[in-house]
């Protein structure tokens, strides 16, 4: 058993444990913290795959910015324990076997049909210089379109989250 496989299994176990904990917890803040654990462990997997820059961005943007937004909203809305209703019990009864079935099916198909391809440690160098050249040369048009997307998202978030009275006052002017 190589060190690479041991590290993969360790990070993968943390990932799966965090994902299952996200489902098991009833308070949203506990779910948010387990999602941060999943994202940090995934950053470790990205490092094993040689994607250093993606790993750094994963920690900074995902675990940093996006999850802070989630935790901020949970605290702003004072979200409490999840209420269990009849419908949610039915969903648990059908959903958990569904997840197990889906996972086993995916694992079976992938393990059976993916051939013998394997990934060496640091097989590909994902350093910022190469990624930047690719992003600003080959993917320039999608990059510019995402900037428009971000602008629209900012305006949408401001309009949706602003107080209704403020919107009406603006309309009256």
């Amino acid at each position, binding site marked *: 058993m190589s060190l*690479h496989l041991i590290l993969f299994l360790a990070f*993968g176990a943390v*990932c799966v444990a965090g*994902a299952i904990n*996200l*489902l098991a917890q009833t308070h949203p803040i506990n*779910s*948010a913290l387990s*999602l941060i654990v*999943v994202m940090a462990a*995934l950053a470790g*997997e*990205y490092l094993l*795959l040689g*994607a250093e*820059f*993606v790993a750094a*961005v*994963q920690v900074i943007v*995902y675990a940093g*910015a*996006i999850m802070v*937004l*989630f935790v901020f*909203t949970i605290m*702003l*809305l004072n979200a409490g324990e*999840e209420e*269990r209703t009849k*419908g*949610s019990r039915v*969903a*648990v009864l*059908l*959903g*958990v076997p569904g997840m197990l079935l*889906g*996972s086993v099916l*995916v*694992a079976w198909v992938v393990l059976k049909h*993916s051939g*013998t*391809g*394997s*990934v*060496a*440690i640091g*097989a*590909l160098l994902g350093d910022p210089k*190469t*990624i930047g050249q*690719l*992003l600003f040369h080959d993917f320039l048009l999608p990059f510019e379109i*995402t900037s428009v*997307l971000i602008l629209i*998202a900012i305006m*949408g978030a401001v*309009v*949706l*989250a602003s107080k209704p009275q403020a919107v009406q006052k603006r309309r009256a002017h």
Partner: protein
Amino acid sequence: MVPLSYYLVLSGILFSCGMVGFLIKRNIITIFMSIELMLNGVNLSFVAFAAHWHSLAGQVFVFFVMVVAAAEAAVGLAIIIAVYRTRETLNIDQVNLLKL
């Protein structure tokens, strides 16, 4: 050397955990976090395929997925705040009208 299929299986497990969370959770914020979990599972398979095919395009796509996830989180959480302001609940069973 780790087989590519191990990464794909891990990615599939994360995706199905996110999918089941989307279905069984009743808190709207937790449902939103399950969507992020699904996006993370997809990102892992992008990076694994990028390493397998020796092409950095997969890693660049991860950035686009992250940008879309960030935009989606900003707009979605704003919608959640707007819903909470009118309904004063985060339970999606009680949010059953499209009208605000």
